[in-house]
């Protein structure tokens, strides 16, 4: 999820990872990659069948401070928030991968959020 002001400045960037996480050889507390060494499950944050996964993000509208508080005259009252859901077969950084090779876009939307 990224948020930008109307003049294109990025003011927020966050991501969540959904995947099964396995230890090596069924033991220990370290998540590993590689089917030849994965056995068992440490944690599973995958999107589960028939289940709803809810994520909440709080984004501050940009502002300057005056006397330790937001100066109302400086608040950027409108931001564009883009939400993307990527499928990344081999993991990696979704900002650096090649689309339709390293990552596949499952969902995208941009919402404009305004505060009074």
């Amino acid at each position, binding site marked *: 999820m990224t948020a930008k002001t109307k003049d294109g400045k990025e003011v927020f960037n966050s991501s969540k990872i959904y995947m099964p996480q396995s230890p090596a050889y069924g033991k220990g507390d370290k998540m590993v990659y590689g089917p030849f060494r994965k056995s068992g499950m440490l944690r599973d944050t995958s999107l589960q069948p028939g289940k709803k996964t809810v994520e909440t993000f709080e984004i501050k509208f940009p502002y300057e401070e005056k006397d330790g508080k937001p100066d109302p005259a400086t608040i950027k*009252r409108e931001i564009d928030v883009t939400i993307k859901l990527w499928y990344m077969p081999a993991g990696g950084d979704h900002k650096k991968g090649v689309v339709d090779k390293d990552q596949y876009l499952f969902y995208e939307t941009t919402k404009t959020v305004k505060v009074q």
Partner: protein
Amino acid sequence: MRVFKLILAVLFIAVPLTAFAAEKKANSIDELAKMYDVSSCKACHAKIYEEWEKSYHAASLIGSPRTMATIASAVKDGMMKEWTKSGVKKVEDIKVEHMLSCLKCHLPQIKDATDAVAQEIAKAAIDGAAGDEDARAKLKKVGINCLVCHNTKALVHKWVDGEPEKGVVYGNKDGAHADPKYKSMKKSPIMKESILCGQCHGLGPNFDLANPTQCATQYGSYLHAYVPSGGSETCQDCHMHKHKTGHFMPAYRDPSQAKSAVKVDVDTKAYYTFYAPAKGHIPTAVLTVKMISNAGHRIPDG
């Protein structure tokens, strides 16, 4: 004494004949490819064949090519390094049982091959992952083709339904089959069932192997998460019929499959939080992202 010599003579002849009558295993990738040649299927099943050719099943040793790199890693990092009791120090030490870690599912027909083929595949995966296009082309010669699902894996409960028969193509009906090598069709009781796919698309660690690997866990997720959540569709329903993708059987690569897999809703709200009065009212946007998975298994899975 004469009787003894006669018995010995009979044994001397019978034992080699018996050995000769046993199934001859493939000694190279080319021989294995020939043993499992499906090119004749295309004449009558052209559309299905063309769908299959685009699938990852057809390139099961290469994949995206993530599979090829992962097999290479299994050999170099697994067998030769971390699996200190595997007996493998170099490619020449590799036996079929080592490569079953990957090939149990990625090339089930390895059961009809010698250790030489296991070594050839291991080497080709290592070389292919390093950029050798000839090695990659070698791996492309074999894969999960028509015969794997429509013969080898068509009967899973052998003590109920018997062993898959040579010369038989298993599908949805019995009858004659217009192929010089596969002359008859028989109905597979599981052809339309998820268990057909589940044989390879996994339950978790492969405990039947000496050194269990864990690649696919989809079928486990299907059984223990999808079905309990009320799901009733089969793998074939979603990956072949719903989006009319047939034997291409795509997953994340197909946009319509991806879109139907996860429903996403985003709610927005903007207000002034007041968590710490000393800091004043903070203008805050709240984004609530709700994702509902409609897939028959966890996402991601393999």
